[in-house]
């Protein structure tokens, strides 16, 4: 009897714990989603509705006019095309270069690979504030300010974070495969192109997503190098909804929503690659 009572007490406690846990999870989910909900619902409000007390989450009257208006306020599609252009060529560069360097550091045994690896880690702590003035000076001397070259070019020389993730992946690939090809007489380039690269498709996908998100969202580089309004990217363009006197929050939120949608879609599709990349490297982007 006593034992049974103990069991029921235990079960009750388990049940209470589970209920509390569920409440906590739901509450946290709501908190973390709140900004997204605010963004989306504000985009369907009239501006007057957004500035009416008491504030309600849902629009009093659903309107869709903010979207077409948002596209009129700034040359939205122009900016989107600019952003897509930069993103495409940045991703391309990272995909070409990252596996090459990672392969050299993990699959070719040569003196210097350790030094290079160390230097790659070290570059991650160089603040952009230090490099931006000299780089700006070079680009302005070459008359490349207000072009996309300063934004795209670095992608063709590898980024530390991506190389480290990719190297991590290659380290997990057994050497026996490459050695077998070596015995068959394949040279280094063939071993890379026909064995290492095809095997590393998951890593390639991961890098591609990172590069996409980084380039699509980039703010600082366009801020430094682009100051002609028709060359703007979307992240710069969002600022134009804020004029000197008023902010049309409904329009701004509509524009932000469209800006965020591709990112969310890409993330949801490729979530697994993304999560693995961070979890295995233990690093932040």
């Amino acid at each position, binding site marked *: 009897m006593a034992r049974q009572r103990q069991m029921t007490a235990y079960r009750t406690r388990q049940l209470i714990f589970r209920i509390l846990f569920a409440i906590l999870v739901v509450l946290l989910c709501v908190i973390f*989603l709140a900004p997204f909900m605010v963004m989306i619902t504000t985009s369907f409000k009239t501006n007057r509705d957004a500035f009416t007390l008491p504030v309600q989450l849902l629009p009093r009257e659903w309107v869709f006019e903010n979207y077409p208006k948002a596209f009129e306020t700034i040359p939205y599609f122009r900016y989107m095309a600019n952003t897509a252009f930069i993103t495409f060529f940045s991703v391309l560069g990272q995909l070409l*270069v990252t596996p090459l360097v990672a392969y*050299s550091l993990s699959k070719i045994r040569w003196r*210097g690979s350790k030094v*290079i690896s160390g230097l790659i880690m070290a570059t991650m702590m160089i603040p952009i504030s230090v490099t931006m003035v000299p*780089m700006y*000076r070079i680009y302005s001397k070459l008359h490349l300010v207000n072009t996309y070259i300063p934004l795209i070019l670095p992608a063709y020389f590898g980024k530390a974070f991506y*190389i480290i993730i990719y190297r991590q992946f290659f380290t997990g690939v057994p050497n026996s495969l490459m050695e077998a090809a070596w015995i068959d007489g394949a040279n280094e380039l063939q071993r890379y192109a026909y064995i290492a690269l095809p095997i590393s498709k998951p890593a390639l996908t991961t890098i591609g997503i990172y590069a996409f998100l980084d380039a699509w969202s980039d703010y600082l580089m366009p801020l430094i190098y682009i100051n002609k309004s028709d060359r703007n990217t979307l992240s710069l363009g969002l600022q134009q909804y804020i004029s000197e006197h008023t902010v049309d929050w409904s329009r701004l*939120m509509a524009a932000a929503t469209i800006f965020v949608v591709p990112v969310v879609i890409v993330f949801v599709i490729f979530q697994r690659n993304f999560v693995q990349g961070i*979890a295995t490297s233990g690093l932040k982007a």
Partner: protein
Amino acid sequence: MRQPPTSMSALEKRSFRNGLLFAMPWIIGFLAFSVYPLCASFYYSFTKFNAVTTPEWIGLSNYEGLLKDPLVLKSLGNTLFMALVSMPVNLCVALMLASIVVRNFRGRAVARTFFFLPSIIPMVAATMVWIWMFDPTYGYINNVLRMIGIRGPNWLIDARYTKWALVLMGSWTTGTTMLVCMAALQDVPVSYYESAQIDGANAVQRFFHITVPCIAHVLVYQAILSFINSFQYFQQVYIIVTANSGTKMGASLGGPQNSIMMYPLYIFHNAFTYLKMGKASAMAWILFVIVALLTVVLTTVSRKVNENAGVE
């Protein structure tokens, strides 16, 4: 290994050549985008120039000027505040989220997605939404606070609260740290918890005597990373300050009473708003030295600590 010793060196040579060739893109990039700007920035820090003029040597004047500029110290203080307050807050939030999503429950994958999503959306869009939510009258945060009877502050207007608004905003984007913590938590052997439970340890005891020590090395590493990254905290404040002042050349470049003038933000303004590129370079080099020293000291200390803790 089956190669005769004489041809080893030929093989080694070829490997060296191949390795170098494959790594060449990065090496060139390293020289062009890291080494050169670092050296140039050091030289520029002793000169005076704007975007177009030729740098003119002025010796240590830039550094002397920094000592007389109260905003340098103020911005350094603001940055230090963010580093010291934001880092533990973010780590606690990330650890809490990680201990939730590491459990097995229905909807776990969904919860993980929700917690992580804020970390990947474009920073401009996210910051804009937060500016709107921080609106003292029409913003959601103060309206939710009002519902539970609290009168919310003028988040981004009152200099006493601006930095706390940034801390709050930062705790929303701890997804990457959460994932790293989650991976570490998954590696803690279940048997530890089981035997502790048999010994009668409660959940709190288990957390502090098993979980925390087992993932301590990861926590320390994340703390270091986040501390160092705080010294580069820039874009969010730039967006907020620009949005508040309306135009790009607004009057208040560091927020209300310069309360969110961060060190990198002040560098940026000196370089591209005031076109004092020599001064900006001097400030940037000080930042570089700080970050480099911190990195070396913190990683050495944490390595020592981990070694002393032994293999657990």
